[in-house]
């Protein structure tokens, strides 16, 4: 896959950085003419992954580090969000809708990520941290144009 552009963002696990992360990714993604609805969906997916890192990975502690890498390939946007927090012991269970360790959170984070992105991969190990990869395929017309140019 041909690399078009990449950015990396490292920030503390503070709630105010959720907005920073989603706005940075949406701005990065405007380079390839995603439509507004796609950009909204990308923003929600990033918000969910970063919120999970803060709330679950670092259990709300504001001193953890979250690393976000956004890569634009010829045909897709790939976003990787990583933390070095407590990790998820039972990943299969965590990915089920309605599962949350916090009664006020709805367990919808992964539901939204899966609904709004074309691919969601989660790697996690207890005590090691969590890595979430989100992929959004570029709009069809643009993908065809890129293939013609390559």
């Amino acid at each position, binding site marked *: 896959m041909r690399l078009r552009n990449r950015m990396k963002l490292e920030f503390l696990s503070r*709630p105010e950085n*959720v907005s920073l992360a*989603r706005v940075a990714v949406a701005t990065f993604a405007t380079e390839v003419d995603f439509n507004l609805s796609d950009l909204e969906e990308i923003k929600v997916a990033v*918000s*969910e992954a970063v*919120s999970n890192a803060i709330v679950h990975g670092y259990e709300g502690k504001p001193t953890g580090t979250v690393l976000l890498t956004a890569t634009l390939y010829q045909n897709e946007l790939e976003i990787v969000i990583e933390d070095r927090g407590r990790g998820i012991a039972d990943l299969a269970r965590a990915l089920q809708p309605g599962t949350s360790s916090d009664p*006020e959170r*709805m367990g919808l984070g992964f*539901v939204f990520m899966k609904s709004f992105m074309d691919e969601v991969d989660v790697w996690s190990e207890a005590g090691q941290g969590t890595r979430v990869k989100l992929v959004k395929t570029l709009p069809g017309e643009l993908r065809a144009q890129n293939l013609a140019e390559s």
Partner: protein
Amino acid sequence: MSLEVQKQHDTLIVRVCGEFDLRAADYCRRDIDQKLKTQGAKHILFNLGGVTFIDSSGLGVILGRYRKVTENGGKVAISNVPPRVTRILELSGITRLIPVYANESLALKELA
């Protein structure tokens, strides 16, 4: 993000403006719960007309208040949902629990 909270009869009207995410969630939860207690309201109406972004943290605040209010025999309603928020509300399933109205007066009529 800002909250405007006003009591009308038995209902606490909560007008949410801006980004309803993790950063806003804690403050909103505390503020609404405190006002529910001090102002003695039975129902809550969430006016989402000013919301520019919402994710599961914001939805969690609404659902948490729904659980609290309905345990005490009250009702919750949502009004003025902007188009960009509609899809995520529907996808979350929250609209199966909480009725959605076009504006505050229609919602207040139902809550009365």
